[in-house]
């Protein structure tokens, strides 16, 4: 049957990854992949997906960040129960870290198929840019700050930062886990401990964010891949972005280590969040479609798709049992961190979309204005504390 899959993987690397997935799906099953890409970011695409599901015209499968985004839809019984598929394939055995599967689980039933792990805590650096400025490529946030004047002198943008809310809040969160550490991160977002939130560490993080605002001044960037592109061109030095940025580097023919560098947690505590994308399968009346849905769930979690998809997209596979010897240095770094168990839950798993959205608005406003770090910090506390 035709299976319509909606997603917002439209940048170069992402599209290539989808291409792989679709190819494997069509090869391995006799179903048909109907692509329903929605351009823009998740915040553009999600409303459309949600309204279609609510409106009773569900697609066959759809991307969500797993976590709380789709929880209500699941609760409302709008999502296909995948427990049987999961048990038959022994998902519990190979999905690593297990928190991924947990995020798909509600009341003991499984409702989604995780497809990749996304860690947003990466800082990417352009070797060409640092070379042009005559400094060593920065490996930490502090080094970047130090190199900034030299970079500026060479006409290079120290930090390529897209101004959209999700990108600016990504930077904030990377700083929280990188500068504050895993416990701090959990205490702030999972426990929502007011003391932690009001702590000096958090205040300092906001001040660092203010510095980041300065370092990104003059970039005038909005889309993340436009920012990555500045790194590829060598006109910007660094970008804090998820592992998917690697897909753009790969597409541009650059290789990790020689053309670009990477580090986790801005060179601070190397924790990666194990959020990522998952595919949900809205309940569908057509049995043929349901059939295809189950088939896709199997394909997604299968080793072949995991390798091909994640290699193209630059993200980490969800399987602990596949051999990724061919991966590049950066992916290797991610895998090692993962293997070391240095994982933290993703924001999506801890905060509602509402709270997350408000944090995004706050950081967007922060970057787009001269809002003081102090005030922003205060508001940040209040937003997190108001999470219901």
């Amino acid at each position, binding site marked *: 049957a035709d299976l319509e899959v909606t997603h917002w993987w439209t940048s170069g690397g992402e599209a290539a990854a989808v291409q792989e997935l679709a190819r494997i799906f069509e090869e391995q099953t006799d179903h048909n992949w109907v692509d329903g890409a929605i351009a823009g970011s998740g*915040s553009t695409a*999600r*409303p*459309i997906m*949600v*309204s279609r599901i*609510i409106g009773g015209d569900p697609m066959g499968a759809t991307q969500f960040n797993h976590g709380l*985004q789709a*929880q*209500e*839809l699941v609760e*409302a019984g709008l999502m296909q129960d995948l427990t049987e598929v999961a048990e038959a394939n022994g998902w519990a055995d190979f999905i690593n870290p297990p928190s991924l599967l947990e995020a798909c689980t509600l009341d003991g039933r499984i409702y989604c198929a995780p497809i990749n792990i996304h860690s947003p805590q990466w800082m990417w650096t352009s070797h060409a840019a640092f070379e042009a400025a005559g400094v060593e490529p920065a490996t930490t946030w502090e080094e970047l700050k130090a190199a900034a004047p030299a970079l500026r002198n060479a006409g290079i943008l120290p930090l390529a930062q897209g*101004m*959209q*809310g999700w990108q600016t809040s990504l930077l904030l969160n990377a700083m929280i886990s990188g500068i504050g550490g895993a416990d701090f991160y959990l205490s702030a977002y999972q426990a929502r401990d007011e003391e932690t939130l009001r702590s000096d560490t958090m205040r300092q993080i906001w001040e660092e964010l203010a510095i980041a605002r300065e370092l990104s001044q003059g970039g*005038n960037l*909005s889309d993340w891949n436009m920012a990555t592109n500045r790194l590829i061109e060598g006109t910007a030095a660094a970008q804090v972005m998820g592992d998917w940025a690697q897909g753009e580097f790969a597409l541009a023919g650059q290789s990790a280590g020689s053309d670009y560098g990477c580090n986790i947690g801005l060179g601070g505590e190397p924790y990666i969040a194990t959020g990522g994308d998952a595919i949900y399968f809205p309940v569908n009346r057509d049995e043929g479609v349901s059939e295809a849905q189950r088939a896709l769930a199997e394909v997604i979690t299968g080793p072949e798709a995991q390798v091909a998809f994640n290699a193209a997209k630059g993200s980490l596979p969800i399987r602990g049992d596949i051999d990724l010897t061919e991966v590049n240095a950066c992916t290797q770094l991610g895998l090692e961190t993962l293997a070391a168990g240095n994982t933290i839950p993703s924001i999506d798993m801890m905060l*509602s*979309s*509402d709270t*997350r*959205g*408000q944090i995004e*608005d*706050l950081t*967007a*406003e*922060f*970057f*787009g*204005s001269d809002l003081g770090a102090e005030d922003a910090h205060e*508001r940040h506390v209040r937003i997190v504390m*108001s999470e*219901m």
Partner: protein
Amino acid sequence: MARSGPPLRLFQNWQAKLAAMPMILTALVIFIGCSLWTVVYSFTSSRLLPRLDFVGLAQYERLWSTPRWQVSIENLAVYGVLSLILTLAIGFLLAVLLDQKIRFEDGFRTIILFPYALSFIVTGVVWQWILNPDFGLQHIGRSMGFSTFTFDPLNDPNLVILALLAAGIWQGAGLTTVILLAGLRGIDEDVWKAARVDGIPAWKTYIFIILPMMKPVFATCIVLISAGIIKLYDLVVALTRGGPGIASEVPAKYVYDYMFGNQNLGQGFAASTMMLAAVLAIIIPFALFRMGRKRHV
């Protein structure tokens, strides 16, 4: 042939009533029903799915304490006032220019109105391109030798409203021009003659005689422009996406983002209820004004 009694009231005109069913349904179900539905749910804590879980005015309290909403309202006010004034001023000026018995009037009018035929998405893309700092006006300015020339409204929170205005007026002022021109043309030729015989110069005639006579036409324009301002959404999405930061956010976008993106329907409904209230605040006085006028005549 002759019937002895009157037919039942309900069935008088039954065909008309039947034919008007789509209108009645639209009016009742869509415009009244959906609006009420939205208002009711704005008092609930609905998140991704509507739930009748009333929380009183909590959503409104939060709405008005949210900086983004405040910025949105502020933007809308600034954009609204400027857009209203500029659109009316430019529209009237253009209408007056077009009314001077000029040659190629059709040509000029075509030029001024054509953007109205375009989608806001198209307008947004075009202006994004023109205002692009690397290729557009700033680039031109710099390549003409003014190396420090800076004109980058799309990335300057203080100027971004100007970018919206330039694009909005580009698209919308033509409509105002055409309406005002029709209004000017509707004015009795003899009034002009009378003013000339009285020796009143043309500009004075326009300002002291014609302008006051066009009050109803201006009222129509104001309502149309205001309705457009409140609905302002597509242009923002296409041109700035609310950025830089939240510098160009508008209420309609807030509603949309909260309803779907942030999965907080209650909040989105509260915001849309505020917009509904704003619309009523514009329309009701206008309707009263019109009805009042009808009664006098």
